[in-house]
């Protein structure tokens, strides 16, 4: 029986339009055999949480370059919790100061990928995490 594909929602929260990273990750994960849904730009945490429920995804990949991560990530995590999506793995990529990382992990972001991360490292992380 074919293995069930990992389902990933790639989301761009906030007002920023710089989507180079989000699009590259979407394509790299798809090339790695995952089912990828890309939300498009300027999604509120509510829109992302609803899309995650509707699409029944295993992973949410957030791309934030604007500095709004400390506001947007906790909001999304609490909405996911309210919707009972406690199993979903949420990862974050973008311009994230190292000092902000512990607090982001504390609200439940599984991993933060900084500039320069290879797409293979992200694929490997997701595979390991979902296999568990």
């Amino acid at each position: 029986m074919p293995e069930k594909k990992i389902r990933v929602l790639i989301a761009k929260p906030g007002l920023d339009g710089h989507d180079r990273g989000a699009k590259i990750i979407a394509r790299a994960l798809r090339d790695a055999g995952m089912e990828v849904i890309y939300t498009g730009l300027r999604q509120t945490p509510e829109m992302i949480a609803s899309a995650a429920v509707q699409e029944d995804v295993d992973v949410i990949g957030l791309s934030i370059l604007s500095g709004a991560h400390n506001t947007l990530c906790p909001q999304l995590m609490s909405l996911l919790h309210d919707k009972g999506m406690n199993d979903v793995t949420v990862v974050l990529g973008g311009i994230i100061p190292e000092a902000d990382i512990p607090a982001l992990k504390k609200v439940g972001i599984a991993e933060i990928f900084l500039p320069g991360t290879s797409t293979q490292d992200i694929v490997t992380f997701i595979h390991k995490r979902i296999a568990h």
Partner: protein
Amino acid sequence: MSDDSKGSTQTVAPAEPSSSDHRKPSAKEKSWADKTLRPTLAKNPERQAEFTTVSGYPIQRLYTPADLTGWDPDRDLGFPGEPPYTRGIHSTMHRGRLWTMRQFAGFGAAEDTNQRFRYLLSQGQTGLSTAFDLPTLMGYDSDHPLSEGEVGKCGVAISSLADMEVLFDKIPLANVTTSMTINSPAAVIWAMYLAVAEKQGADWKKISGTLQNDILKEYIAQKEYIYPPEPSMRLVIDTFEFGVKNTPKFNTISISGYHIREAGSTAIQELAFTLRDGLEYVEWGMRRGLDVDEFVPQLSFFFNAHNDFFEEIAKYRAARRIWHKAMVERYKSQNPRSWALRFHTQTAGCSLTAQQPYNNVVRTAIQALAAVLGGTQSLHTNSLDEAWALPTEFAATIALRTQQIIAHETGVANTVDALGGSYFVETLTNEVERGAWDYIEKIDALGGMVAAIERGYPQREISEASYRYQVAVDKKEKIIVGVNDFVTKEKPLDILQIDETVAVRQGERLRKLRAERSSDEVARRLNALRKAAQGSENLMPHIFDAVKSYATLGEICDAMREVFGTYEEIAIT
């Protein structure tokens, strides 16, 4: 190069460069290839089978007169200050006047950025350049629900004329030229700037600066758009028309390749899409009934300076040649001021690494050098910490000093177009130009840039190029020092943190503004704007009126949203 790529190197026959089938090497060159080159390659193969630019463009081993067959220096190179402007748009270039050192700055609330502006001017910076935060770029006030978490983060928060007055407090707009990186709400922000100038008593006919105002590259690359293309283009042409009449020294647009490149395009795509955007604006202006030779002299350009030194220099040289040709041949322009492509350059933000950030000073210096040798009119050098955050004052100072060292210590500003006549640079200039014309003609065939954007053509081309580059980096075919090779562990940098008190301060200021202004007057002027938007008259005077009544940016943009609607792209991945 990493050991992996060395291992995969193959011996290549000393064939003639693949790019030129009609290349006719001299007897001397043939003899060199046979007697000197061939035995060397047999013994020591080259490091790679193929050498390419950062854009993936193939580069040959050696360029000789055989690569420039048919190239006529009088016609193709010319002299500086004369068509086709390959060597620069002024006869003395940087000997006459150095480029403007224009560092992009903006963060927090207006008073924070005002302080940074005054610091930069005190350090010898010669022009201002304003970065706005995302709510401002998207036409939302700081207290809009969608602004939460974004206020003052990527730039300065400007919600009304009151903020703009603080931003330029004690900065004489009669003497300082200011660039403003704002696009969809450009007309509104410009109206605020003009209102401040008026209050300071500065003569509109004399003030100078640059409004980015380039909506096409927003749809293509940076994606900070509000309205659909048609009304957005109308607003742009409204500013052109207003500028011709009222502010003849102001650049009403900065047609930008910078963001196209940052989104992952190649150098040729950056050049082609930017210039085709330029032609689109010219055509829309002409359709409005404006005289080419009246409004085109107020159009300026903005390019990226990426890592590949010679490719960048070739790009700037080719840009001038293409613009001149298009203006004269396509639009029958008679005014040399319309023919000369003036441009600002910013070093490539996307080339900065979060790893080993001090290396970014070196990258930026080399990129800046390319911009100077390419004949830029103004320059922004990025700060070493910008892969992490907006720059600290310390980092921003080094970035400015980098330009001052290039200007005053290296000697590169002592002569005009130092690389002119180089077989390599001239060949690459020709090839980059040809590549750009191919794209320009493709976009012509699609019905112009607006039509091409609606079909997702430039977006898809950039996306492909950006993915190709990422794959090359992941496979170590392209080496990024400190990222995929020469990696070390480092301790974190001290970076600039913007806290949420900015949003609180902005919220209070807006509440006070709304309480103190005449709400009847605001409503009346917003209604007039709404009504004008439904018709076809120039909206600038109405926007100016609304701004002066202290209607907020969000209110003014909303009035136009009601009439124009908003734009959503079809996301391509």
